[in-house]
Every structure is written in C-alpha cells, then in structure tokens.
C-alpha cells in the first residue's frame, strides 16, 4: 500500500508542481513577492476539496459524463490562462501588474484543484481502516515530498539562469505544459464520446512504455501518450502553434508601438 500511495501521489503532484515552480521562478526572476502564489496554492487545495466532495454528484451530470466535462473545462481553463500569461509578458506587461497576478493565480488554482481532488478522494477512502491509513498517509507524504522536491529542483534550475534567459526558458515550458493540458482535455472529450474515438496513429509503448518511469515523467511534462489518436495530435500541435503565435504577435505589436 505504501508504494502505491507514493506513486499515485507523486504522479498527481508532479503535474501541478510544474506549473507552480514555473511561476515561482518567474516571480523570483521578476523580483516580486511570492505571497500571492501561496494564496493560489491554498485556494487550489480548497477548490480540490470541493471538487472531491461533490464528485459523486458531478459524475452524474450530463448522463454520466460530468467528470470528463469538468476535467476538460479545468484543462482548457489552464491552457487559456497560460496563453493569457504569455500574451501579457510578451506585451511587456509584467509583475506586479494585477492582471498578470490574476492569470497566474487562476492557472495554479485550476492545476492544483484537479490533482489534489484525486489525492483527497484516494486518502479519504481509507477513513475507516486505521491500519492501512497509516501506510497510505506516510506513502502520500513521501510522494508529496518527492514531487515538491522535483518542483524545487526545476525552480532552482530556472533561477540559476540570467533573468532574460530564465524568462525565455519559462515561456518554452509554459508552452509545453499548455500543449499537455489541451492533449488531456481532448482525451477526456474522447472518453465522454463528445469526440469520436479513432484508432491510434502509432504505438510507441515498446520504446517508452507509459508504465515505465520515463513514460510517467514524460506524461507529467507533456502528456506523453504511447498510443495517441489523430484528434489528440492535431489539438496538441494546434495549441502549441497558437501559443507561439500569441507570443509572436504580442512581440510584433510591442515593436510596432515602439516605432510609432
């Protein structure tokens, strides 16, 4: 039970830790207080607890696909806020601008809510079993600690760079995370039968299996899928292209206004 809990919690924490450490690093590089990010983390946990509490009802929405649609909206929301973040900073609207803070907070709240809801539901399942609860809790704590350490590692990796390079690196990672969110949203829409399920385009499970550690890490970073469908690939590439287009056009408009 202990090892299961470590793996389960680690998987969930890694994804949220990515977004949090990216924004922590951006805030440090911008020499601003990180207090508002801590507030977002707490709000994310509250949102997660609420989601977990109402999950039985939410699952019944829309003839049983409420969970998929809620998850799609959460992932789509994260993507939109990340895109908003890229637009703002590429337009040279930086911290401590309130809008920048708001999009960063919203992305963190959404990212933490879904992942933490799953962890809370998992742990709450052992309420009545005190013997198992002990190992589940210690396993979860170990998983949480490893996940947070990975986030801290990523954070230090980024702030070790020069500010300009760090911002560029953060933007690249935000684009990668954004693509991953849209790929997962597509997956949920296929599962809900709102998008047609088609045969996988390729099967790379013999190269990197989703069961393996590299597969899991790649999944957390960029929603690695060994057997992706056309719709996932198209949505993934389109969302990456859209984000890059947003950065480019914001910069272009910025340059234009300089010459005017």
């Amino acid at each position, binding site marked *: 039970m202990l090892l299961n809990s470590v793996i389960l919690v680690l998987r969930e924490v890694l994804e949220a830790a990515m977004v949090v450490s990216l924004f922590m690093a951006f805030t440090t590089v911008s020499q601003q207080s990180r207090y508002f990010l801590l507030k977002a983390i707490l709000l994310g946990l509250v949102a997660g607890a609420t989601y977990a509490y109402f999950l039985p009802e939410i699952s019944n929405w829309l003839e*049983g696909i409420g969970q998929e649609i809620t998850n799609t909206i959460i992932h789509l929301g994260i993507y939109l806020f990340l895109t908003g973040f890229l637009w703002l900073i590429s337009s040279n609207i930086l911290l401590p601008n309130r809008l920048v803070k708001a999009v960063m907070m919203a992305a963190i709240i959404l990212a933490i809510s879904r992942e933490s809801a*799953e962890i809370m*539901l998992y742990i709450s*399942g*052992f309420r009545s079993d005190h013997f198992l609860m002990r190992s589940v809790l210690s396993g979860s704590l170990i998983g949480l600690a490893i996940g947070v350490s990975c986030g801290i590692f990523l954070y230090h990796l980024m702030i070790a760079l020069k500010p300009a390079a760090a911002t560029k690196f953060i933007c690249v990672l935000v684009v990668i995370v954004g693509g991953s969110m849209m790929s997962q949203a597509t997956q949920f829409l296929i599962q809900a*039968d709102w998008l047609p399920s088609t*045969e996988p385009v390729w099967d790379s*499970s013999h190269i990197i299996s989703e069961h393996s550690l590299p597969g899991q890490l790649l999944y957390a970073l960029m929603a690695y899928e060994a*057997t992706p469908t056309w719709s996932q690939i198209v949505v993934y590439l389109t969302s990456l292209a859209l984000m890059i287009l947003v950065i480019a056009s914001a910069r272009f408009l910025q340059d234009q206004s300089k010459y005017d």
Partner: protein
Amino acid sequence: MMKYFFICMAIMLIPLNSYAAPPVFEILIKDHLFYPDELVIPANTKVKLLVKNQDATPEEFESYELNREKVIPGNTQAIIFVGPLPPGIYPFFGEFFPKTAQGKIIVKESGK
C-alpha cells in the same frame, strides 16, 4: 434570425439521437477486485462500460492501453465509452488498489 438558428440546431441534433445506442457491458468492483476480470467485447464497435463500484472506497478505473481514466466514488457507478478497437488485449486496473484490482478487455472479431 435567432429562431432559424435554433431550428437549425434542433434539426442537427436529431440524427445524434437516432444513432443505435452502443452495447452496454457491466463490470463490478467488489473488495477491490473487478468482476469479470476478463471482459470480451466485439471488435470495431463502440461499447459503453458500466462500472459499478460496490465498495465503500473510491476507485479509479485506469488503462494506458485504452487511454482511459475515471474516478468512481464508493457505492456509485460510472460509464466509460470504449472503442471502436482493433482485436487485442487491453489491460486495465484500479489505480487506488492496483495490487488486486486488475483486469483486461479482450477485443475479438465477432463470430470467432
């Protein structure tokens, strides 16, 4: 203008309803085990899995091969659409109790 828009929308929704409903297959979760743990479904057909969790604890139905994941709270049921799939074996597991909750979906051409 809006009236025509709604009429068009209503007409577009009709064919969706008249599609043949996908066949339903039931899977039970009891004592952190799947019953049946091997489910045979027809190839190249979309099916609806009805997963009934009879345990008090939540479970997450997960399969890397099927690209599916869904949390099923205790004493509730969930539907998961699967397929159309080519013939093959697609393992699934309960992420919350992976030691015991293991199963596979066997996709077979009909008539074989």
